[in-house]
């Protein structure tokens, strides 16, 4: 059952909230607890069960596999057996991910299509600080030399690339042949 809770906004009018989670009543005894725990409502295995029909509806071909391998910086020259395993893996993952879209609450409306929706547990996303002004930016630039951190490699000589890989004394990049 959906319960509507009321939110006060200072002097603004009350705004109804939809509530999808629920707090039940107090369990009075060990017997109550045991009865609740002996009545499971689902199994996690239903998320990973073989669903042949769903697998067949997902199209993953050889071209897709090679494209993904290339995007991943991995060898694209795989054997037919390896390719078959990869196709199976991608299809299984997609069937698993389809559970994201299984939503029984038909009253929920999806947000409008946009490219800027995100959700992170980062403070500045939810509690923005003071706006950055030109004056504060210029002050930060002035203070920058005092704020560089050798641990981040921001000062000359703090660490060298040779320290990261002692086996290779020199550091070279390889250019492909041009022209």
């Amino acid at each position, binding site marked *: 059952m959906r319960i509507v809770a009321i939110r006060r906004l200072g002097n603004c009018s009350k705004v109804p909230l939809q509530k999808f989670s629920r*707090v*039940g009543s107090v369990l009075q005894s060990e017997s109550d607890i*045991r009865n609740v725990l002996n009545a499971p409502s689902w199994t996690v295995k239903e998320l990973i069960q073989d669903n042949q029909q769903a697998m067949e509806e997902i199209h993953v071909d050889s071209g897709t596999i090679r*494209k993904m391998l290339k995007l991943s910086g991995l060898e*694209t020259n795989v054997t037919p057996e390896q390719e078959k395993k990869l196709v199976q893996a991608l299809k299984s993952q997609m069937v698993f991910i389809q*559970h994201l879209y299984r939503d029984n609450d038909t009253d929920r409306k999806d*947000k409008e299509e946009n490219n800027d929706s995100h959700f992170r547990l*980062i403070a500045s996303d939810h509690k923005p600080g003071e706006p950055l002004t030109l004056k504060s930016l210029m002050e930060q630039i002035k203070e920058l030399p005092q704020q560089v951190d050798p641990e981040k490699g921001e000062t000359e000589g703090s660490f060298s690339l040779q320290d*990261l890989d002692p086996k290779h004394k020199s550091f070279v*990049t390889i250019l492909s042949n041009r022209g």
Partner: protein
Amino acid sequence: MLRSSRIQIRPRCAIKTTFKQVSSDPCFAPASFFSLKRLSTTRSHYEQLDSTKDIWNSLISKRSGLSKTIEDTNHRIGSNAEPSNKENVTTTSNGSLVNTSFVVKDNITTTQEETTSASQMLSNYKSPFNATVVSLLSAEGSKLVGKANLDELGMGSSSTNTFYGPVINPLYYKENDDNTKHIAGGSSGGSAAAVAAKLATFSLGTDTGGSVRLPASYCGVIGFKPTYGRISRWGVVPYAQTLDTVGVLSEDINIVEKVYRVLNQYDSKDPTSLPENTRQEIITTKTSDLSFLTIGLPEEFIIEDLSEEVKEIWVSVLANLQKMGHKVKTVSIPSIRHSLSAYYTLVTAEAASNLSRYDGVRYGYSVDDIQGSAHDMIVANRTKAFGAEVQRRILLGNYTLSSDSGDHYKKATQVRERLVKEFNQVFNLPHALVADDIDLSTGKCDILLSPTSIGSPPPIEEYLQQTEENFLNAYINDILTVPASLAGLPAISLPFGNHGIQIMGQFGDDDTVLALSKSLLD
């Protein structure tokens, strides 16, 4: 910022009963059913370390002085490398952690030895700086004695996906034992095993979807994952940066708390670190008044897959909390059912991005004979040096993000946001960051309680066979730990018998989680 007039904080009374007092009640479950572990204080910790061999493969590298049975000059197991004498951490003889030793998961950087993340890709990588958490602990007088084995780059729940061989669970395997070797859980299996084997006072792991709590449960130790953002990730090799959290493992809850207090600091070098003003604004339950809590039992964790033994422990712990005067209520958080799908969409996508930096050019593994173009070299390095599970997750992540498959990352993010709001609606305390849907009704929960894992750790061979048949089998056990990860909630696994019980608190309310844990274990 929330004004105090909006929120009614219920008055608390001093603790009247403890778990130990209840356990003497004849109505209590048999004592053998529970095992309240305590770290031995009769021998000095270094004596224990010197006499203990690491037959569980919990450590990838050890520092000199850890064990007299290991060559002091061979600091890496199986290598001929000389240990570095470079010591650039500040230590003290007066800190709060003097006379303790610790092990860090080998995805946390140190300067004295390689930081491998149990991957061939980083097998030769030496960090130029220590992770913030290492510096803080050393500054408080604790001694780092080794780097713990793990699932490669944090990807796995068993600590069998490692370049250095699987970790063996010390709870099930002793020296000269013919018993079957069981998994230690993962990905922080080495951290949990090292503590269970008494190789260190405590260890650090990283918890992305349960990787501290699950191995803690399997190895019979305490594993604490604080609120996301409380502990610095500077120097932690990232797997999925919106979820990675440094966690603490130990046999002693007081040590866990001490370590947490040392590490719970803002770090300007970590852009996801909770800022100081946000930390000050977090409303928490008063730690001095912990009687008469309301404990939520999430209905979505009541699954058919739970073993009878785990269910029985869950019943017993809740029943005894009732006897202590706490209330137990069922709660429903529907998005928990979508949490595994959301999690494995987000982590594979973030991993694919994070691991793209490993090309073997500037650092890391590179093939000896460079053929063809730079691209060919990078492909050869990555194909050779990443393990099978890592390669699969990168592929799956890139596929999830590609237009070929759909808009799944965005959908998973929406599920995550909904999950956080559903948690908010069952907790009494407001969320420190996402607090715009404040429900003024009272009688909600202070903490949530569930098992940490659905059953016992399987034998290594059985686990490998199951995952070979279907890699998704490895995901099942994460259902109990992933929701707290997605919501960034503080969560701890406490050992009861051979299983773990998980306590979760509202975002930022780490103190209540720790305080209730202490009252259960003291």
